[in-house]
């Protein structure tokens, strides 16, 4: 098991900067998710860690040793690929044995290790088969087995679940998490699915445009997003983000925009000034919804009603702003009804209107990562 350090790691493909000065400290045994939309640089970062891409500048260290110029085979890492990358002309047994064979391990030891790993993953009956004779879920297990069999310092996983159907994905998610708990391995996990990141990771690194936006625990990322991008990317349904200005109404600071208003929590009152442009963020679950007028609230018209069983999502329009809110299934509502909404003041997020960085009390906990300007 190992620690990993990325220091100002940058990757340029010609003119394009795919990864821009990323700095990450990953502790021994941590499960870190690299998350972001496609093209954000997360896979390039992983490939640089694996040694499959050269680093343009910056350093990558594993266990305190700089590995920039080390071949993938000398980094003692294992990788699970999105398409599994099982060797199609080899049996499952040979696939699992390949990394051990390359280490020149004695045949008897290889056999023991392969069988142990197959037992752990429940793929012993498949050992004689070829990859194309396996289902997607079985291929996924074999790919995991091939990584597991080596007992590497670090596991790198590149969207390993994205080719599975929804049900199997949820099942494998639980299994991966248990596997991490049992092994205590350091895992770097690339995904575009924020839910996978939230459910499995100890820490999440949110990337966009090659820049690390925030690196923190899921709780921190969810409750204290660094900027508008992180706020919008994490959470489902995503946070409502609305442009507005700060106003002083009857001695209380509030932000308001086209048709909505929300008073600010006391902790933020000192951080903003009147008529400052801001982006106000509020999660759907933090909007009170009522048929009666609410204090510090505003009215909005219901556009769509989407029941999911447990909860019902409402899309409402207030002036020129659309908001998503959540109500219980018992709440009686129909499209074009007029409702009253009010933001839960303590859960309001505020971002600077120009830089889109979070506005926070100066004395509070500092941002984990000082991300450069959000693109």
């Amino acid at each position: 098991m190992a620690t990993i350090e990325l220091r100002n790691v940058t990757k340029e493909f010609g003119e394009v900067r795919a990864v821009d000065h990323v700095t990450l400290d990953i502790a021994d045994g941590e499960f870190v998710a690299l998350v972001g939309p496609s093209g954000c640089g997360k896979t390039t970062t992983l490939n640089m860690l694996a040694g499959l891409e050269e680093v343009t500048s910056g350093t990558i260290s594993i266990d305190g040793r700089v590995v920039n110029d080390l071949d993938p085979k000398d980094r003692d890492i294992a990788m699970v690929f999105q398409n599994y990358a099982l060797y199609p002309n080899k049996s499952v047994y040979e696939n699992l044995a390949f990394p051990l064979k390359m280490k020149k391990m004695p045949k008897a030891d290889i056999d023991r290790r392969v069988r142990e790993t197959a037992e752990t993953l429940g793929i012993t009956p498949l050992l004689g088969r070829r990859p194309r004779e396996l289902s997607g879920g079985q291929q996924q297990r074999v790919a995991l087995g091939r990584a597991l069999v080596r007992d590497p310092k670090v596991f790198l996983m590149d969207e390993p679940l994205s080719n599975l159907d929804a049900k199997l994905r949820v099942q494998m998610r639980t299994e991966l998490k248990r596997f991490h708990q049992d092994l205590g391995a350091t895992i770097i996990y690339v995904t575009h699915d924020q839910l996978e990141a939230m459910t499995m990771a100890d820490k999440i690194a949110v990337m966009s445009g090659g820049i690390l936006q925030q690196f923190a625990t899921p709780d921190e990322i969810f409750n204290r997003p660094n900027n508008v991008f992180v706020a919008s990317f994490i959470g489902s349904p995503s946070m409502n983000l609305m442009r507005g200005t700060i106003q002083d109404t009857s001695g209380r600071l509030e932000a308001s925009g086209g048709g909505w208003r929300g008073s600010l929590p006391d902790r933020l009152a000192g951080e903003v000034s009147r008529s400052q442009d801001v982006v106000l963020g509020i999660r759907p679950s933090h909007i009170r919804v009522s048929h009666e007028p609410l204090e510090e609230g505003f009215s909005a018209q219901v556009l769509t009603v989407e029941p999911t069983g447990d909860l019902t999502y409402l899309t409402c329009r207030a002036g020129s702003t659309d908001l998503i809110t959540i109500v219980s299934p018992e709440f009686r509502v129909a499209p074009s009804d007029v409702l009253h909404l009010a933001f839960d003041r303590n859960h309001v997020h505020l971002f600077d209107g120009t830089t889109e960085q979070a506005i926070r009390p100066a004395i509070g906990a500092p941002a984990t990562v000082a991300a450069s300007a959000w693109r």
Partner: protein
Amino acid sequence: MSATTPTVRNRRRPWRRPENIVAVVFMTALLIYTVVPMLWMLSTSLKSQFAALQQPPQWIPEHLTFDQYRTLLSPYNDIGRDFLRYLVNSIWVSLASTVLGVAVAVPAAYAFSRFNFPGKNALFFSVLVRNMFPLVVFLIPLFILMRNLRLVDTHMSLIVTYLTFGLPLSIWLLKGFYDNIPPQLEQAARIDGATRFQAFWMIVMPLSSPGIIATAIYAFIQAWNEYVYALTFLNSDRLLTLPVGLQRFFAEYSTNWPGLMAASFIMSVPVVVLFLILQKHFVRALTEGAVKT
């Protein structure tokens, strides 16, 4: 989609569907057109000289004789000696250009498929451009080149020429194969402890072997059948390859039709055998290069 889910009636008699009748008629015509000359060649080669000129011709010879084959394949007479020498020359030239061709085409195709380098597209295009000209266009320039290199009247002149003629298609076919092998397989191998070369050798090579076999056989057949360059570059009788040799045969023994047919038949055997082995791989090679899956 209706073609793949035929009605019960059609399933019982699939050949009754109009498009199949057209196909069967067309294929039969094509088969007659290609196979009949071959059969006629075989038939004549098994006749006596007298029977070969008989009117009306006999399709199945009354008296089968293998004399011509015996003569051609025996080193103890002049005709056989010449013929066997041409055969060996042909095998040597075709095999050498094929082996060299594969040795060059494999790394070239791999590089075109996997690496990005300046001028890659221009280079690949210029490799393919060669295929757009008829071979004869290069005859005189290449002859002058070979003369300056003092390679005229050597097997090397043909080996080099066939090599350059075979390469564009070989590279193109093989590139299609490599394009279809996910790069993640090599990446996985490199992470699993292989060097870059080992990853290529242990993972990519076995997967691309059908493509390599297909291109090799194709290059071999091209070299085996080539006539114009062999005729131009070679003067010495002892160096001739089969296609040119057969022509000499024709001039010298113009009355011996069965002998000529027997020699032609022997020459076509390797091509047919190789093509039978190849056809499955070859179709795959062509389609895999063309269609991205």
